[in-house]
């Protein structure tokens, strides 16, 4: 037995609602050596999580391992009985989930949950387990390791909880740890801390790991080897530097290309049209949640006196971490949350704070596209109805004229016309986001507020959406306010970028200059935290501790 894990010709199939069998994993082979970290990378639906779960001998409901073998430390997880598998789980193979917040029981103290595995498998006495947990907390550089275990999950931050879930996985001294996109939901500045903690712990303990992710840059920091997956098949296996420097498979190249999208060519549209006329202008706009106090400011101020000007045909990016007020700002501009103070000018004219007080024409010309197409499209209506309603509402289109316009819209966003009879649930994530965009286009707007529209999408799909936005801008002369936490996408499409921190706009500068030495210290911290494809980036990264203390929430 030369390798810790040997996967041979693994096949997983799922049974659909109608009883049809679908192959999800179509014969996958790879090995993991002792102490090695292997990354599984691919877009959603590529089967990366499914493969990782089979290492625990587990498949999601409706799926089953149809063939092949998964040998972990000499045992074939596919052949074990359920009882034997439960003995292996936690003590030989452990799992770190994507969302630690959902994996912890909110009603129990953290310590009880972290040492649960030692109790179930009867590995060590409670006192020893707690001592070991504290040791792990320290190794994962958690604050106040002695007492953090007595808190409840809601009393620690997201990044801390993710590290605690790693402690939970590591306490049973497993031979193999599975990380299932553990940093995807975290902010970039938090992600660094978590990645560093994972990396140092894994290095010390010499455990093998499987790291599932769709983010090539994150994977580059932690993995020794990378397995690129697509459609349930291995496309390419290689060491991290091989994959990054000399990708062989076209799909791998596509992934790498999507990581560094071409920058925006200086706004030609602006130069041609009357550039001086701002399409949107904000004057010291504040907004927030909760009851307004005596001076009229809301209880929780999410946006604090933000001002900017956006000229016709140009794009403004707004970046910041979660909780910085960027989405609230978009909602304030759209009139969903009326500003507590300040004034919004649209096309040179002041608009009413609340959407219901705005004229239909104002509403039509300013459209918003939300992050999650899953919640932004009515699941009970067909694509045709979803796109048809704004056409009927704003333009009074009926019958054949309406149908023709729907076809045009679908062409604009590069979707096949036949899709119009489907329900949103029957489309892929990227297709849904295109429909979401098409609905905004149906209004014939001047300005589209894009609220994190690529965040939920895979790298390659997101890059395609960005390209689409650029094409549409050329064709229709739109302006975008593009909100994102991802600097690369913002730089790809925007002329100027505004950085937000705790509700305030800390600075606004041309897209190319973001993060340069001249910038605000917070912008510099944010920019330096964005992972790079260079595998040595994390180790070489030096952050000013004062800056981190001042701005990172951890």
């Amino acid at each position, binding site marked *: 037995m030369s390798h810790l894990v040997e996967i041979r010709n693994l096949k997983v199939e799922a049974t*659909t*609602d*109608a009883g*049809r069998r*679908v192959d999800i994993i179509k014969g996958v082979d790879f090995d993991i050596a002792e102490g090695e970290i292997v990354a599984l990378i691919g877009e959603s639906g590529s089967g990366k999580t499914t493969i990782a779960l089979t290492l625990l001998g587990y498949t999601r409901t409706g799926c089953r391992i149809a063939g092949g073998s998964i040998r972990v430390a000499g045992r074939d997880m596919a052949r074990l009985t359920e009882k034997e598998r439960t003995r292996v789980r936690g003590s030989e193979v452990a799992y770190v989930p994507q969302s630690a917040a959902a994996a912890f029981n909110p009603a129990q103290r953290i310590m009880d949950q972290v040492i649960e595995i030692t109790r179930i498998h009867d590995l060590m006495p409670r006192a020893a387990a707690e001592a070991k947990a504290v040791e792990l907390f320290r190794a994962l550089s958690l604050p106040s390791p002695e007492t953090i275990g007595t808190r409840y999950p809601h009393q620690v931050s997201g990044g801390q909880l993710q590290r605690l879930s790693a402690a939970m996985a590591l306490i049973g001294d497993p031979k193999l740890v599975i990380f299932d996109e553990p940093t995807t939901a975290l902010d970039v500045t938090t992600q660094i801390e978590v990645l560093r903690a994972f990396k140092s712990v894994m290095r010390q303990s010499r455990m093998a790991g499987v790291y599932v992710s769709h983010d090539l840059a994150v994977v580059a920091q932690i993995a020794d080897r990378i397995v690129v997956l697509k459609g349930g098949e291995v496309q390419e296996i290689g060491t991290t530097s091989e994959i990054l420097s000399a990708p062989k498979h076209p799909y791998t190249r596509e992934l790498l290309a999507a990581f560094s999208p071409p920058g925006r060519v200086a706004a030609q549209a602006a130069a041609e049209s009357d550039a001086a006329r701002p399409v949107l202008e904000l004057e010291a706009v504040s907004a927030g949640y909760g009851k307004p106090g005596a001076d009229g400011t809301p209880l929780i101020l999410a946006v604090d006196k933000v001002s900017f000007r956006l000229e016709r045909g140009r794009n403004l990016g707004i970046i910041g971490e979660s909780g910085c007020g960027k989405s609230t700002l978009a909602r304030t501009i*759209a*009139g*969903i949350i009326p500003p507590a103070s300040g004034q919004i000018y649209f096309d040179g004219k002041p608009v009413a704070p609340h*959407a*219901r007080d*705005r004229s*239909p024409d104002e*509403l039509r010309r300013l459209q*918003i596209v*939300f992050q*999650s197409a899953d*919640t*932004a*499209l*009515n*699941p*009970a*209506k067909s694509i045709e109805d979803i796109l048809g*309603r*704004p056409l009927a*509402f*704003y333009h009074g289109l009926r019958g054949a004229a309406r149908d023709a316009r729907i076809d045009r819209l679908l062409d604009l966003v*590069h*979707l*096949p016309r*036949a899709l119009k*009879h*489907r329900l949103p*649930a*029957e489309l892929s994530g*990227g*297709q849904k986001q295109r429909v979401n965009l098409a*609905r905004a286009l149906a*209004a014939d707007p001047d300005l589209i507020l894009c609220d994190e529209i690529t965040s939920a999408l895979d790298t*390659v*799909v997101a890059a*395609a959406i960005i390209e689409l936005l650029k094409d549409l801008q050329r064709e229709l002369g739109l302006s975008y306010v593009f909100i994102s936490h991802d600097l690369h996408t913002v730089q790809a499409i925007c002329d100027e970028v505004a950085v937000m921190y705790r509700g305030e706009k800390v600075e606004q500068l041309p897209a190319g200059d973001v993060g340069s030495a001249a910038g605000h210290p917070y912008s510099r911290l944010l920019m330096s935290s964005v992972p790079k494809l260079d595998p040595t980036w994390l180790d070489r990264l030096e952050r000013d501790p004062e800056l981190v203390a001042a701005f990172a929430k951890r």
Partner: protein
Amino acid sequence: MAIDVSPTFKPRLPGYRFNLTGWASLAVVVAWAAVAILAPYLTPHGVGDIVDLDYFGPMSAEFPLGTDYLGRDMLSRILFGARYTVGISLAATLIACTTGVTLGMAAAVSGGWFDAALSRFLDALNSIPSKLFGLVVVAGVGSSIPVLILTLAIIYTPGSYRFARALAVNVNTMDFVTVARIRGERLGYLIGSEILPNIIGPVFADVGIRFVFIVLLLSGLSFLGLGVQPPEADWGALVRENIGGLPFGAPAVMAPSFAIASLTIAVNLLIDNLPQKIRDRSA
């Protein structure tokens, strides 16, 4: 980006899955509905005719369910009673659920003082014990079929309102409702097109459950003598007027009880086993 396009577009025929329990309970419900409609053609004897000299007669070929305390044919009376039990309950259920669901969705979408005022008012109504409310109304204005229908509808509107509002509040927070709102859509479109299609499944289930409650409450009121008045009788009234036959084990008291049980259980089972649409996304 790869988009899978099927070369020829074929219209989607949604498949449905409906299990045996569902079919069986549907058959019972449909049978009772048919009986209610066709009662005059089905009854072997006149509803009010005293056809047997004996009272609380046993089951026989001539009187399949025996005779009642006056010697009237029990089968005919149950067949006719279905009209009142099913008809009144159905009318009351429809009024209660239409009002409740509409108001519930409107309250969830509007929010603010409209929601607060309506919720408190209906909560107050809900706090009155339903039988007591029925007793007071019937004692006050007398018993007639319109009064019964309205009383039952009023008693069950608050529950339906609460249920629909709770469902609608969840849908209301979805982005697609926000999108419709900032498009400038009016209340009617928001509740009818954006909210209702997404809560219709649970709402149907609730309608069924409320129908069962109303059948039972109506039977209860009739049993107390406040429901349908003689010589007409719904199933509850049939149980009451024949309660004297209980010591004799007369079929006259059993049969209407079984009728109530069969209808309410069948409706419940039907709700639990409604046809399910087969969703096959990868198809």
